[in-house]
């Protein structure tokens, strides 16, 4: 398979002005990826599928990643890196037996600018998986045929796979709590002992 840089160059040759950057992967798997701007994403995806050399006819895996806002230190200068949501697509070619080509897209932030183009029109395989990313991460996919919650119920408001999601506090009663569960169990006991005292006073 051609290198990720070669694929990037061919994309840029076909779509001048498209945002495509190579994201290097430090692990021994060496599965490098391309970060694609959302403006050209659908066209690039279609091109990747139809290109004769690559013919990435199968989108195997779609997933979201949450990158909350964090503080990074570069050259002893601290700066705040803004948070975003990322969607990762693993593409393979069944006919050419190639892959994976990994493409990723990022939202502007984690609150209001969370719309990305849906790639379901290109690969039907994205249908359920993009719904899952919508449900669990809160990424909106423009152009998705049926964007609803898939795993949680429709009335649910949160996006539980986000890193800052706080689950309902309902497992503090385990017989041998430890670590943060122990802390929560103590806190809950204090709440419980405090509440009846108030009632008694009133």
């Amino acid at each position: 398979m051609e290198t990720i840089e070669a694929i990037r160059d061919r994309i840029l040759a076909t779509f001048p002005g498209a945002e495509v950057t190579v994201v290097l992967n430090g692990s021994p798997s060496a599965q490098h990826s391309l970060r694609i701007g959302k403006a050209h994403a659908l066209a690039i995806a279609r091109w990747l599928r139809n290109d004769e050399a690559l013919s990435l006819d199968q989108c195997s895996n779609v997933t979201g990643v949450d990158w909350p806002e964090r503080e990074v230190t570069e050259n002893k200068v601290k700066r705040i890196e803004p948070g975003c949501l990322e969607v990762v697509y693993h593409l393979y070619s069944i006919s050419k037996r190639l892959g994976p080509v990994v493409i990723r897209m990022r939202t502007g932030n984690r609150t209001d600018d969370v719309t990305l183009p849906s790639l379901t029109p290109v690969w039907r395989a994205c249908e359920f998986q993009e719904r899952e990313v919508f449900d669990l991460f809160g990424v909106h996919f423009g152009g998705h045929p049926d964007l609803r919650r898939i795993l949680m119920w429709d009335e649910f408001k949160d996006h539980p796979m986000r890193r800052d999601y706080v689950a309902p506090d309902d497992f503090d009663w385990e017989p041998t709590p430890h670590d943060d569960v122990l802390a929560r169990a103590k806190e809950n006991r204090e709440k419980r002992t405090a509440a009846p005292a108030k009632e008694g006073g009133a």
Partner: protein
Amino acid sequence: MSDASQVTQSDRDEMRRNGILVTSIQEIYNWGRSHSVWPLQFGLACCAIEMIAASMAKYDIARFGSEVFRPSPRQADLLIVSGTVTKKMAPQVVRIWNLMPEPKFCIAMGACAISGGPFKQGYNVLKGIDRFLPVDLYIPGCPPRPEALLHGLIELQKRIGKEPMRTSRLSPAAGDSPAKTYVLPEFGEHDIVPPCNPAIWKAPELTGLDRT
């Protein structure tokens, strides 16, 4: 007060050796009842596979009179909660339980049904079905082996066998006989509402929290 208590066990054994069977209506009744427990064909997760295995040739739950797995809750009197109950599934489980006619029994099979088990950290996992249903028997394991399920069934049969007829949940004399309806949780914005049925479940008091 059972009339059979007038006759001791050794009397009965003596008579049985002579070809006379002495018993009471209650014993006959409970004997029949305990050996025709019809479980609901209701699988939730991994434990359901072991429940199916228990009904297959090697373990053969039919030996204990419980092979008639009924797909309809109206025809079943044993609910085996076999696997993880998620919050999304909890209303359905309670609804099924409410549909079953009295007298009915509930077995929590496996760690997840008992307490959430390995998945108790999950945001969508109910931490034990006893928060919503009156559980008669807990079978630990992840998943419990089919033998464990059979053992649980035998224990349940023993319990049914001891149930006094007059206060049985089937008997009109038994007070709360009309089937009780249990609270059905609803889907809320962050959790199910209510998160447990306070009438039957209370968080246990934790001791030993201050150990070092």
